[in-house]
């Protein structure tokens, strides 16, 4: 199946390359292998295919070849990418903060350190909600309840050790509590988690803002705070505004395999920088409702190190890493 798809991609890619002459941009790579460590249809897959869409139209890359290997927050795909593509200058993997937590909790021998960071592209703020029927009216109310008895406030979200769980841990730490005291209920996927919050089975919930946005709009969930640096939704305050020093976003970016030469890495960084500057990219971010979080080079490497350290500290405290 993947070979047929790559053939198809090659054919359409050739056609696009032929048309790209008048687009003005110079072709940076003849072909690019894009590895998605998740199934088709998810967030990483969406970002990968968005890159293809924009880069091919602009003629930056001739052809794209995709491979999806899903499972366990990317832990199944990661070793395959690192093992099979080592040193290859024309391969990228789409991943993000979910993998940071997953590789730590799953104790995979291969980790983020084995990848060559290229660029962070997008991020999504999380949101802390309570069911509409809840007594808790605002963030202060939730924080007071958490501070008094963290075990009594069950919080629903995605898989254990993921971004949602880490956010709860960081909030508890900022309250002077241990992350371990939290009563976190992990659900498999967004549907069951949302259902548990809507049905008031849990006291509160944490997830990506886009996942809960429609429930908040319809009044079935009450949003207390978002977890970004700045407000994503003008009507919802951030955690930092309310005096809780917690910033946690679900970021997504691209990485190259280990062992590639510095000039090959620079070429990929230049490619992503050029892609990011395209009006078509800005347009795409707007239609998909993705927050631009472009970061490359030293700054990205430093951010990554900090993210890994922060995540690891919380996971260690909970006892998961």
């Amino acid at each position, binding site marked *: *199946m*993947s070979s047929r798809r790559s053939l198809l991609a090659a054919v359409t890619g050739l056609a696009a390359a032929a048309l790209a002459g008048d687009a003005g941009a110079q072709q940076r790579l003849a072909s690019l292998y894009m590895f998605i460590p998740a*199934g*088709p*249809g*998810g967030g990483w897959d*969406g970002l990968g*295919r968005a890159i293809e869409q924009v880069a091919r139209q602009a003629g930056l890359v001739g052809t794209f070849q995709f491979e999806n*290997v*899903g*499972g*366990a927050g990317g*832990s*199944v795909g*990661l*070793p*395959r990418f690192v093992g099979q593509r080592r040193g290859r200058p024309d391969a990228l993997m789409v991943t993000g903060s979910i993998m940071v*937590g*997953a590789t730590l*909790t*799953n*104790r*995979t*021998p291969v980790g983020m350190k084995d990848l060559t960071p290229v660029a962070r592209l997008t991020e999504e703020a999380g949101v802390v909600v309570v069911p509409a029927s809840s007594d808790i009216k605002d963030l202060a109310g939730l924080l007071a309840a958490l501070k008094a008895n963290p*075990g*009594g406030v*069950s919080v629903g979200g995605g*898989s*254990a*050790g*993921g971004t949602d*769980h880490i956010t709860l841990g960081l909030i508890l730490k900022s309250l002077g509590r241990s992350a371990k005291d939290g*009563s*976190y*209920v*992990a*659900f*498999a*996927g*967004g*549907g*069951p988690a*949302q*259902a*548990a919050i*809507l*049905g008031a*089975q*849990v006291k509160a919930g944490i997830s990506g803002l886009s996942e809960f*946005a*429609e*429930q908040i*709009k*319809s009044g*079935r969930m009450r949003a207390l705070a978002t977890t970004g640096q700045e407000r994503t939704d003008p009507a919802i305050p951030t955690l930092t505004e309310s005096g809780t020093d917690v910033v946690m976003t679900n970021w997504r970016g691209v990485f190259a395999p280990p062992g590639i030469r510095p000039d090959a890495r620079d070429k990929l960084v230049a490619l992503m920088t050029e892609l990011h500057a395209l009006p078509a990219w800005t347009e795409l971010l707007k*239609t998909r409702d993705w927050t631009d979080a472009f970061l490359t080079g030293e700054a990205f490497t430093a951010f990554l190190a900090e993210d890994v350290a922060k995540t690891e500290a919380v996971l260690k405290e909970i006892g*998961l890493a």
Partner: protein
Amino acid sequence: MMDSIAGLQLGFSHALTLTNLGWALLGCFLGTAVGVLPGIGPALTIALLLPITFKVEATGAFILFCGVFYGAMYGGSTTSILLNTPGESGSIITALEGAKMARNGRAGPALATAAIGSFVAGTIGTLGISFLGPVVVDLALQLGPAEYFSLMLLCFVTVSAVLGGSALRGLTSLFLGLLLGLVGIDLQTGQPRMTLGVPELLDGVNVVLVAVALFAVGETLFMAWRHTSAAPVVRPVGGIVMSRSDWKRSFWPWIRGSLLGFPFGVMPAGGTEMPTMLSYYAERKLVKPEHAGEFGTTGAIEGVAGPEAANNAAAAGILVPMLTLGLPTSATAAIMLSAFQSYGINPGPLLFEQQGALVWTLIASLYVANIMLVVLNLPLVGLWARILKIPQPQLYAGILVFATIGTYGISNSVTDLVLLYVIGIIGMFMRRFDFPTAPVVIGMILGPMAEQAMRQALTISEGNWLTFVERPVSLAILALAVAALVGPRLWAAVRRRASA
């Protein structure tokens, strides 16, 4: 109610255009094809079709997707019955009686009762979506992890129906299933369990893979092992059409299965597997005494009609939380939601208000797809049944090839192929020493679900075990489970004493 009728009228006026009928037909064809292939399910197919959302308008694309979804439910039973190779987890139970019927010259009626049962269930399910959706979903939201755990305990009772003659052997099989179900990352802690350092095992062992390995590969290897050089036996294909008695015996199982399946589909953590198990259990208990002997021996038609209807009604039910609340409660629904998003539509509780025309067209196209599918599938019954005319060695070789290709299709992973044959060899020995294989699969499905639900419930209750009996719905389900477990035995004891 009136709103629903007006909505349906609008929906049919959109769905019955030539283009949209074309999309529905294409979807039904594709869906039946992927349903027949083990491994490739509707979720993967729709995911691969996602790029068409750039080119095709929303209505057409969703009609195509719904056709694929319903079609896969129809097709899934075909290989279960003919080759004992279930294509997806909802049709694993269908294979129990279906394959036995096929082996005894009743493949035609088995396939027909599955197809017509799918139609009946699809229609009841779609009626449910049209008229009961918002009401049922609000009820379903009242169920929490505690209730789900109790429901799963109730389903464990059904294992007793497939344990076979020896409880020791049956329970051994069940525990093997529970063991396999433990492999992979634990949801509540993110820790890997029994993965032996193999990254592919982090995501757990696929239950369809195990079913195919035990039912099809194990059986095939056993046949090869015990094959005698006598003249090859060609199995009787038997009559194709359902007899009067088949209709009579199928009718109530269809209805009961449908009514059981739909609410399970609506439940956010329900799924298609649990209702098929409960339906199988119910049919086995309710069967007329003169047919009771067919269960587990020559194959009882009730055991195909009920679970297959339950499977399809549950599949229809899964669309309810998606359409009324925007909740993706299955892989297929999650992919469909991402398709909505690529049209700039954010599915949520306001979907019916904001996209009324699209949603009602989609529902109307479900009725259309359901009719198309039964018309497509019934004539195929004769064709499919003829597969059994292939002499046994060749037929079994074909099954092996088919199972291998299908398994590779799940994940393109060699690890899965190794697992298929290792578990297949275990299945061969289980067959040789009379260990039933169905409890393995049931344990594998229910075990992890029950474990997670129990731990979720206990986290919420701060470790208080009484939560399971303090919540009234949970208590009621537990009482039902106890009654189902000891009731028949007590009843038999009372009767024995009365007659003595």
